[in-house]
């Protein structure tokens, strides 16, 4: 595996070294929107703004916005008036400052170009209703993330600033690999979406889970009804102190629905734990799942109790 990765990277650098310079570079025409922004004055150059706003342009110069025909003026309005007012009167003039705009106005400005794809369903969503602006999470000038121009290096850091309970759950023993950087909040959620509950990136929570856990999709010969209906009946995807992100420890979780005669309804207390006087295979390790392994569904003819 590693050898293959090394080879690929080696080939990449070889390609880099061998790449011949183009005779005449041609600017790449990038069209972010179907609605073209206002054209800037012919003599306008972003370096004029950089004279005073160098820090603001350091990252910006490497962003896709740098390709916009109007550059700063696209979002900030008449920069020539600003320059004139600044030099002649020491005032900012008619320049548009996003820090002074309402969230709705900020969003309106951004959606001028971005009202499509993932952002098309922003209006009416909970983040819209809570008065969040695009600039609450994103920065055009000082972004830190690899993708999406977020103000933080990881999207989870952005989300946790308003969702601290989720951060605490993510610190649990059983968790998805978000804190390890292998998943992001955006792996499951589209924070711009208004159409789906909890902004998940699927038609329903089970379909979201089954996107990665396809082995549980079935259909199975023997189905487990609450599993088919809602993964969240038993799991907390944000983190849990119980095995497999379970909402509660087995056997007690199972006993919320199964108080049948004999062993399902039996009390398993401290005596039946490992440190107790009578450890039971219904209370230790995987408890119920020690025998009912195929709890998500079984395709075995002898699996009506999900044990085969």
């Amino acid at each position, binding site marked *: 595996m*590693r050898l293959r990765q090394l080879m*690929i*990277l080696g080939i990449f650098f070889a*390609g*880099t070294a061998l*790449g011949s*310079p183009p005779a005449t570079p041609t600017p*790449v025409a990038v*069209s972010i929107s*179907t609605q073209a922004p206002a054209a800037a004055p012919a003599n306008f150059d972003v370096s004029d703004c950089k004279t005073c706003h160098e820090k603001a342009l350091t990252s910006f*110069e490497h962003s896709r916005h740098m*390709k916009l025909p109007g550059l700063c003026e696209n979002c900030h309005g008449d920069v020539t008036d600003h320059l004139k007012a600044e030099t002649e009167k020491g005032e900012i003039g008619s320049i548009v400052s996003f820090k002074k705009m309402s969230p709705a106005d900020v969003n309106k400005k951004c959606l001028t170009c971005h009202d499509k794809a993932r952002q*098309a*369903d922003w*209006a*009416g969503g909970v983040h819209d*209703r809570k008065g969040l602006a695009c600039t609450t999470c994103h920065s055009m000038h000082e972004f830190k993330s690899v993708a999406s121009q977020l103000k933080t290096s990881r999207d989870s850091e952005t989300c946790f600033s308003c969702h601290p309970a989720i*951060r*605490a759950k993510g610190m*649990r023993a059983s968790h998805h*690999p978000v804190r*390890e950087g*292998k998943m992001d909040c955006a792996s499951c959620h589209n924070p711009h979406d208004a*159409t789906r509950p909890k902004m998940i990136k699927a*038609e*329903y929570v089970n*379909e979201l889970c089954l996107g990665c856990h*396809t*082995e549980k*999709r*079935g*259909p*199975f*010969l023997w*189905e487990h*009804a609450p599993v*088919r209906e809602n993964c969240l009946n038993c799991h907390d995807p944000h983190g849990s*102190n119980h*095995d497999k992100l379970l909402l*509660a420890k087995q056997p*007690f979780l199972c*006993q*919320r629905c199964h108080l*049948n*005669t004999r*062993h399902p*309804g*039996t009390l398993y207390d401290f005596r039946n*734990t*490992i440190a107790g006087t009578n450890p039971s295979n219904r*209370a*230790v*390790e995987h408890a119920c*799942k*020690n025998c009912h392994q*195929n709890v998500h569904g079984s395709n075995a*003819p*002898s699996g009506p109790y999900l*044990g*085969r």
Partner: protein
Amino acid sequence: MKRLLLAGCVFAAGGALLGQAEPDKSYFALGQIDFGVEGTHADSDSSKFREYRELPNGPFLPFLRLSGDQKLRYDVVIENGFRDDARYRVFVDYEPIRVRAEYNSIPHRFGNDGRTLLQEASRGVLVISDTVQQANQAAIQTQFARSPAGVNFAFLSGLVAPQLAAANRIDLELLRQRGFVELGLTPGHPVDVKFSYFQERRSGNRPAGTSFGFGNVVESPEPIAYRTQDLGLSAEYARPWGLVRGAVHYNTFRNGVDSLVFDNPFRATDSTDPNAYTAPGAGSINGSSRGRVDLSPDNKAATGSVGVLFRLPANSRFTADASLSRWSQDRPFLPYTINSAITVPFRADDPANLPAQSLDGRIDVKTVSLLFSSRPLPALGFSARYRVYDLDNKTRRIDFPGYARFDAVWEPIARTNVPYSYKRTQGDATVTYDLGPATLEGGYRYLQWDRTFRETERTRENTVIGAVNLRAVQWMTLRASYERGSRNHDTYDYVRGEDASFGEPAPAPTNLPALRRFDQASRTVDRVVALLQLTPIADLTASLSYGHNKENYDREAIVDPSGLRYGLVSASADTFTAEADYSPGERWSVYGFYTREINRNFQRGRQSGAVPSTNPLDDWTSNVHDGVHSFSLGGTAVIVPEKFDFRAMCRYQNFNGNNDLASPPGGTPDVAFPISNFDDTRTWTVSAELAWHLAKSWTVAAGGWLEEYRTNDSATTGLSNYVPGSFFLAANDGSYKARVGYVKASYHF
């Protein structure tokens, strides 16, 4: 071939993108490469330390990025290069083609150094030496002949102890290798067409509960050889009036191992008797020499979706989306059993005696989603949603005359598979009104489930919502909301589900009649969320938040004569967080948070013998109380400008879980002993790094972290390989204390 294609693409991209061009104002080429040496030490072999990551002893490449805009725009990011937890991302924009690709390798380690008598003979076949099986069977038969009661834990433990001492060791771990590529064919044009391909391979093993019955659980390493592929095509046509979108996906899951066969440590030959599912013990020493469990069957899903969005007058828009999916599965059935001794009423190990050879399973899913949002006045907003998720399980029903219980004995209990279906309908409407600094919000939401084959046919939950967003002053924002939900069901028929599955004559119902399953039971839900964000001075941001969630099932109509409710009775979670970030200029900054959580849940059960008990003295209650403290504190400091930086961070969580079990005296169980070490866990990490900016492009940093994970879990801590009735792998995923140190250089260009 695929590797060649991949290499070719990367080569072409590398060659083209770094072809040096004449400088243009908008052109750039940037890069960063971090590399160094890392050393790691842990005081135990717990898999938890490396659960989702690889921490090497030796050279490492934590980060590499090449980005630029020359003849094409590109961005290549490598994290944890050439490791099991590597992540590679490539973005190339070369009009009119836009390519986004990612490879993400995710290890998942479940436990190290597990011990098992089983050895892999071939993929999915785990065997025990015939000599061991024969010796154990002979010893048990001798003991049984002498005294059936003598076949007990002490005897069996003594029998297997030397075998376990010499048993195989195994690490339980899984590796997910996820690759994704998306090709944007017409980005930026009115019609945006994208083609995507995803593939994930999962390989390794995981602990599986495989069992020969009540008295002989044999936990085994289940082989994982999964492959998931998804092929997608999507298009979006965007115009000023709105957009039209659509997508199709074809997704397949393939399991390289159909079943898991595992030897019985106590039997070398097949046999059966009515009590064999309890063997080995006083009741029986029979059973199968091997067991077999079904592993996840191959399946596939095809999905098509269409949608339209209209931008309407008065800042309004209407969105409608619909999708149709079909999930199917038709892998051949396993025979009833692998036990050749089960020959009555027929040879149960012969697949010809099955009533069907495969399921031909099919599920159709239809979804409809409508959204209308409007802001007719600057101060007034409105939104309404309606969604239907209709899962129709069209799998045929097959009548089985019985089943082989744990491969030990034929049970002539006729069963029919039950293809559960449901339709989930939900709608909500929200109105917001701006009153200057405050925005008020009111809403209503309903959720209705229509189910087949379950205890209820319909449940409906109505929720009212009130919220306020307050920004009275520029430096303070308050967002608060309250929800109150109420769910009711129609007739609760506690035997409906069982009736659907058991053939005639149906056995007497065994579940407690008074039990209400929590996913359908009547309940109320109260939810409070409040977040106060403060920016009293430019350099300081602070926030306080509180969350409360309570589900109360005390509205359930009672049928138990004692007047008590059974199953989950209540569950609540309260969370309080204080957080601050102080950045007084370029020289230093600090941040931190503290979160306190209190989680409670209460449930009631009743212990029964052969028939459901009606005696309240047989009740028991479980009152779980979790108290959690979490905090983090960190900061950065510029010690010498443009020379030395320092950053440090600590993170801590202490989880104290208790299960206060109780049972009234006089019945069965008569008394209950609480579990104080229900799931106690403490984790902390302290890290620090000193960076020296050697030159404009070079930085050298030295750092490291200390980390501790302590767990005391009643179900797993101290588990041995053989406990009454069970062989466990007892792989180590427990406590550890570790330290990691590194020196790395970073080159920017």
